[in-house]
């Protein structure tokens, strides 16, 4: 049976069409979820896409984290459902307490849009198809992408192997320890600032490296079934 992966749209979400396309390219069915939904329609996994949910008012991701749809997402994630947060989605997962740390303004205070190389450093639900240590190229596009946490948290994330992606060059946004993405303790909830959904086809992106995240989770879902 085809896996069904939910893609959430909040007011101000922008990359939902891209995330849904990536899900389809990977061979799964993309299910649209609306911010007011309180039922996840039985999806097997959820992608929280990028954009400026609720206009980034208050704080990026803060309002979306408290929206109706996030209640069941958090519950399902705590029971092991794979969740991927990209860019604003990563911010939302941090604000919702599913991932540690926070994303703050880039050190240069400017929005940065460029292709970037990332090192895959952990085997998670969303990276099982990659060799740990391999590099992928995907776009980074954000103004508030600097990952920060206290030193203790950073040490713990590194010690527990929960740094999933690290910038292969000095982080252009000033992210602490060059961290681009992290995961939950069970490795099923992953958040990253760069955009794998924009790297699924050489026609429209730097290549197809990003598709690996979506095929990885399908592999896990199939294996679990």
């Amino acid at each position: 049976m085809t896996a069904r992966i939910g893609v959430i749209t909040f007011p101000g979400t922008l990359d939902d069409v891209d995330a849904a396309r990536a899900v389809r390219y990977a061979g799964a069915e993309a299910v649209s979820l609306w911010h007011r939904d309180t039922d996840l329609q039985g999806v097997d996994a959820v992608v929280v896409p990028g954009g400026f949910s609720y206009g980034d008012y208050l704080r990026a991701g803060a309002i979306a984290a408290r929206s109706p749809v996030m209640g069941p997402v958090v519950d399902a994630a705590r029971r092991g459902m794979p969740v991927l947060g990209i860019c604003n989605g990563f911010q939302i997962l941090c604000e919702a307490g599913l991932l540690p740390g926070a994303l703050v303004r880039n050190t240069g205070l400017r929005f940065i849009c460029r292709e970037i190389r990332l090192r895959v450093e952990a085997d998670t639900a969303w990276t099982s198809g990659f060799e740990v240590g391999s590099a992928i190229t995907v776009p980074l596009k954000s103004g508030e992408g600097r990952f920060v946490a206290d030193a203790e948290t950073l040490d713990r994330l590194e010690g527990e192997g929960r740094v999933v992606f690290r910038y292969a060059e000095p982080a252009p946004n000033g992210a602490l320890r060059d961290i681009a993405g992290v995961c939950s303790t069970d490795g099923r909830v992953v958040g990253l600032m760069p955009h794998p959904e924009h790297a699924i086809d050489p026609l429209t992106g730097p290549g197809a490296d990003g598709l690996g995240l979506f095929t990885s989770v399908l592999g896990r879902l199939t294996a679990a079934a």
Partner: protein
Amino acid sequence: MTVQDQATGIPPLDTVANAAATPEHEQPYAALGLRDEEYARIREILGRRPTDAELAMYSVMWSEHCSYKSSKVHLRRFGETTTDEMRRHLLAGIGENAGVIDVGDGWAVTFKIESHNHPSYVEPHQGAATGVGGIVRDIMAMGARPVAVMDGLRVGPLDAPDTARVLPGVVSGVGFYGNCLGLPNLGGEVVFDPTYAGNPLVNALCVGVLRVEDLHLAFASGVGNKIVLFGARTGLDGIGGVSVLASETFGEGGEGAGRRKLPSVQVGDPFAEKVLIECCLELYRAGLVVGIQDLGGAGLSCATSELASAGDGGMEIDLDQVHLRATGMTPAEILSSESQERMCAVVTPENVDAFMAVCERWDVTARVIGEVTDGEHLRIRSAGEVVVDVPPRTVAHDGPVYSRPYARPDSQDALQASTTAGLARPGTPAELAEQIVALASSPQLASRAWVTEQYDRYVRGNTAAATPADAGVLRLDESSDRGIALAIDCNARFCLLDPREGARLALAESVRNVASSGARPVAVSDCLNFGSPEDPAVMWQFAEAVDGLAQACAELGIPVTGGNVSFYNQTATTAILPTPVVGVLGLVDDVHRAVPHGFGAPGDAVWLLGETADELDGSAWAGVVHDHLGGRPPRCDLAVEARLAGVMADGAARDLFSGAHDLSDGGLAQALVECAVDSRIGAAVTLPPGELDPAAALFSESAARMLVSVPAGAEADLARLCVEVGQPAARLGEVGGDVLAIAGVDPLDVAELVIAHAATLPSVLDA
């Protein structure tokens, strides 16, 4: 004398009855930008003095920005030169919110460029942001989904103190608004020139896609249909933006020249606009809209008078129903507010509930503010009293039309006589190499990555090419491989030397940019930026440029579908360079076959298509090396340009090209450098055969030329194609290595070129 209410400070309501009873009441029409004779004409139309609210409506709608009163007599040239054959694929043209082109398979594309110059000087971030927001709403109003933006920016010299305020502010504004809307920015232009120091140009382009059957036009027909205002609340921002701000010249430059006009600048909220886009598209899909108009310049004054005069002629509006963000707003303020992110729709009574439900789903505020009536009255009430009662056509369409005097300035002869013939040209391999690097690292030609890395180019996943490619290429629809290519261009230095030829060259370059991707150019949108129309020399530049562009479009057989005129771009008596920015839309049958930008693979041949003449007047070389601007611009033969575009399209369809880059600013030298830098690979080439000295061969800016990379197996086919159509072509060498080796020039290390090209903007803007 107006007696203010002691408690609130709000003047009493100036009703139509009151206006009729107090003919002698003095009105501040001059402060609103109206002239004596224009005010007299309004009194004549109404048969009485206008109310405060009516005066506000006429003043904004009869402003230069809205009424085109100085340009109208010249803009007729576009209509006169457009043949039925050129209109064949046009679903909507000049006069609509934006032109619409049928591109086949039931798809249509709409695009337009518009200026937001004056606000961007006063408040660069908000001025530029709302420039993007405004053009996006124009595209939405046609029934289309906006799918991409581009921007043409012109500011003072890179190292001028005010540029450090204006450029970063403008770039952050364009990026902030476009990025938050989720529209990829495909590129555009950044130009530095002293004439833009006190009057920057921000020209924004938006392109949208729609199914042909979803085309919506702005008209209010059907007596009894409801007028719905939806989107953001109406506030006290942008009052008089089109009149006192956009239609007047700034005073002497310097600190704070525009600060007093700050209240006329609008404030943008891209989140509100993103939600409004999705809301509108859902309303269209559900068939709930009869007519629609965006609220931009002149706000509700424009939307109500234009909708009414394009429909059945009459409309009743109740201002008490307008959702406001400030208290105590007068009718005049409500009618001339340019608060952003608002739309006005005409809805049948039975669809109002469904319309409101869609708005509620998107958390968009919507209110029925009036209805369509028969007759010739636009009647507006406030607190139950009639404050406006006017024939809507007299507001929207019957504004003054001026045949402003124009004359070729006496200084033009001396300017054209000051050619580059006497300028020292480099001769040795070392001098040539040094000047190539000087050009590549000059503010005019250096990398724009500092700007474009602040714009999202990936969102929506259809961007097949964006800057530094000559043209942006976008997939239209995932189920087919159909796409479009877009470019905007203008070399205003050429336009100063000869506005007619310069405008033709702007079209030629935009066409060439689009053609470099293999696309076939099909339509034009223009943004005509000039100084004060009250200066006969400026009016001459305008008349020449419009006529030149209109004729050039006719020669190429592609229509101007719409655009915008921006006058009063000058500081005191110094006008900007005449800047007719030309946007060209091209069609791509298969985006997978679009020709990539730059050099191809190692071993591919490098060919130069087109002929090079000794044409250095007005060139980047003359400007950068000698600080010289004079003489005559390069010749522009549009038949030759069309032939080159045909070779690119035919060659692309047969996969003959692995890379392409058009030749423009900086000539062959700069094109070779950019190919090497952007593709991170070298090449070994000779100069094109002929009598030219190396400096002319490298730096001449002759039109109708393209540098292409050709896989070994395709060279014979390309040669045959060129012979068939009479396209001059020369094989210059091969791609490969990490050095740009030009015969007769010291070798240039590609890695060093990358650094030299990239460092210039950050070295100043990040300092």
